[in-house]
């Protein structure tokens, strides 16, 4: 399974109102440039995610399984990044401790402790490493992840 994201993501500011979402707030900072082409997979009720902890979701893209790590922060923001830790190959980023580094929300890999930005997927300990980031939205209390 590849860890390179099939998505090209563009960053917008947090809390942007999306015109096609009937007034629902988009909690993630990342929105695909051509969001209209995304397939929105419903994962679970938002309340099923424990605040300040991650959870893994098993989805599919292009016929391949995709593991997504979901994080619900205490301020209500929800982030989705790839679940595979690029340093160990283990699908465990959802089990890391979340927090911030210099104000950037991060998760620390539970294997070798590198920090990954929950906003961009960038590894803060190695400029050459990045994990994919996925857009998320909430509809009627259900969490949805956007996949190509």
């Amino acid at each position, binding site marked *: *399974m*590849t*860890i*390179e994201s099939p998505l090209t993501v563009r960053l917008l500011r947090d809390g942007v109102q999306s015109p096609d979402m009937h007034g629902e707030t988009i909690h993630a900072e990342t929105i695909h440039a051509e969001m209209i082409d995304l397939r929105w997979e419903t*994962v*679970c009720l938002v309340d*099923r*995610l*424990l*605040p*300040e*902890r991650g*959870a*893994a*979701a*098993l*989805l599919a893209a292009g016929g391949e*399984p995709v*593991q997504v790590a*979901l994080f619900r*922060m*205490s301020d209500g923001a929800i982030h989705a990044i790839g679940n*595979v830790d*690029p*340093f*160990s*190959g*283990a*699908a*465990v980023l959802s*089990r*890391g*401790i*979340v*927090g*911030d*580094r*210099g*104000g950037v*929300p*991060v998760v*620390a890999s*539970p*294997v070798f*402790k590198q*920090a990954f930005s929950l906003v961009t997927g960038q590894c803060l300990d*190695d400029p*050459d*490493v*990045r994990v994919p980031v996925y857009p998320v939205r909430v509809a009627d209390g259900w969490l949805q992840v956007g996949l190509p």
Partner: protein
Amino acid sequence: MKELVVVGNGMVGHRLVQAMRDRDTAGTWRITVLGEETRPAYDRVALSSYVDGKTAEDLTLPEVADPLVRLHLGDAAVALDRDARVVLTASGRELPYDALVLATGSVPFVPPVPGRDLPGCFVYRTLDDLDAIMAAAERAVAAPGAGRRSAVVVGGGLLGLEAARALRLLGLSPQVVEIAPRLMPVQVDEGGGAVLRRLVESEDLQVRCGVSVTGITADRGRLIAELSDGVELDADVVVFSAGIRPADGLARAAGLPVGERGGVLVNTACRTPDPHIWAVGEVAALEGRTYGLVAPGYAMAEVVADRLLGGEATMTPAELDMSTQLKMLGVDVASFGDALARTPGALEVVVNDPVAGTYAKLVVSDDAKTLLGGVLVGDASKYATLRPLVGSPLPADPVAMIAPGGVELGADALPDSAQVCSCNAVTKGTICSAIADGAHDVPAVKACTRAGTSCGSCVPMLKKLLVQSGVEVSKAICEHFSVSRAELYEIIAGTGIRTFSELIAQYGTGRGCDLCKPAVASILASLGTGHVLSGEQATLQDTNDHFLANLQRNGTYSVVPRVPGGEITPEGLIVIGEVARDFGLYTKITGGQRIDMFGARVEQLPAIWRRLVDAGFESGHAYGKALRTVKSCVGTTWCRYGQQDSVGLAVALELRYRGLRSPHKLKSGVSGCARECAEARSKDFGVIATETGWNLYVGGNGGFTPRHAELIASDVDTDTLIALIDRFLMFYIRTADRLQRTAPWIEAMDGGLDHLRAVIVDDSLGICADLEAAMESHVAGYADEWRGVLEDPEKLERFVSFVNAPETPDPTITFVSERGQPVPVALGLPGVRA
């Protein structure tokens, strides 16, 4: 190639070989070492620790393994042929030399009293001497008849007091007989000697000064020592420690000149009048004077190594410093510079407090401007600041410098030329430049300058210099909290704050991270705040604590049920075997005497634990910074040599401290006798049975920097032992840094093991009752964490592989079979770097 023969394999001879091999990178010298003793070179300065439980192996100096070095042990040099330049040995070897270094050290001086050769009379110099003394003490203690066994120590100097302490540890009552009017006459003046005497007498040691032993006679299996004042002392053992004499016989026989009081005469280059022969250490009479301390000996070894390689080094007066600081029978004694005021016109400033049991004296020049030396008894804490000032202008009024509550001299009072470490001749200037070059903590300063690596008495000064340079490494846990873990503990314990969000809002910044969150989780757990997955606490846990299992490389977990003391029934073994088989787990026996099952997926953990809990197992906390195991040998129950029930104690200790969260993992062991089959001395706290109780050792670990645990209390009963361990663990939990194991914690403590002993044995801080109460509360509040999960549906909800497919196994996890067991398929790491 040139031939160097080193006669003598003591500490100084060993240092010379090391110095030669460090410096002679071109390999111009081949070195042959002759050692009279059959053992490899050992740390004679620490000889007495052999009685405390250190082994000969512990004391052995690092071997200089090198093809250019040949070592002949148990083969003394017996003659020199200076014309032919050949050494003849006891075994008949004839060794030619281009250079010969005499490092034969000293022999004990035994006064010529009748009866000094009787069985039961010993000297105190080598490990073999100590073996003989220990055997004799053991025989005396085991002999039938009532009453405490006694010993006479002839000589009340440094060595005599060490011998007396050793004999007391061996179960004898020692009496010290010193011919001079005071103890330690070489180092301490009359006033200091009087305070020292009162202090050691309060330690249950009898002292007779101003008398000599005039004869020893055998009397019905014991000995009688007759004294010059007519008193007769009964003794089972007599130890002569009345000084040393240079072992210069070889040199005398070869016609080399010797000093007035013995010793091979050498100049400041340590060379004898024969240009091919040198002398170093206690056998050398440097410009006529011998030096019985190791530091000048080391300096001589370095000088000779330099000279043999074409250098021009000479001994400097600073390197001949005879300053001493030691703890004698629990009493601090320090003597430095011209301690006995022999300089013409020297003035003495004395502060004598017999009530507090302290004596301090400074010797200053006749114009009262320069510090010449001093003596400290009872409290030597000012030694590190005062000794380097010898020869320098007095920075303050001398009375104020030694009076209680007087001037506290900072590191800035020292000139750059002041020698901070006298063992390795390191000046303040050298240390400060090392700090400026990036040595930012004590271990780094030790590594670059060698300061503090021998006796360690200058370590407090190294810390002061680091603080003064303003580079003391921040103790802050992370960017979110500017305080240390110990301070955070105090904040949490003191304020009653019990949630991370409240704590960071009031005392930190930001949202926390993987450093501060687990640290706070550990502190909260130590304070007994319920299940580690309750409420907000769950968000703070590292993945291991979050899933109560150990994460492995492929994202699976390993499972370790507690097996207290390593004792397990056949039924228990069968359950573990069945669980491993049914869930397809790899099994391995751990070093801590339990069984680890690997390869469990997150969603399997509850089902695995339901089986284990139903069979009576509970969490082994292998995943936590917590007590892991208490390893044991079988002890008296089965073993022919066992002295106590080691398994029973190990089980009791493991059950008492199970679930105890701490700054790092904690391991323990209990051995039923001194053979130490449980390897207790490699543990954070280790217990070894004695005939009548237990010895407690603390601060051991394996790992990256292996450390042997050190004795903190001996021969205590089980209740005392448990109280001491309670205090030790709670004090550690409260004051250690994050991820600091017990050994570095003790090392970093001001005063080290002695301070720790004062706190937990003598209750110097008055906190022991509080520490014990905290442990009682932990013991009373213990509940099995896995049972807690299984009984709570909310906690169980965490144990799913995927939030949208709770029972689907992670597709990246696959296994292959190796030696009949499942092992993970290595995960590919595609495109880590673009």
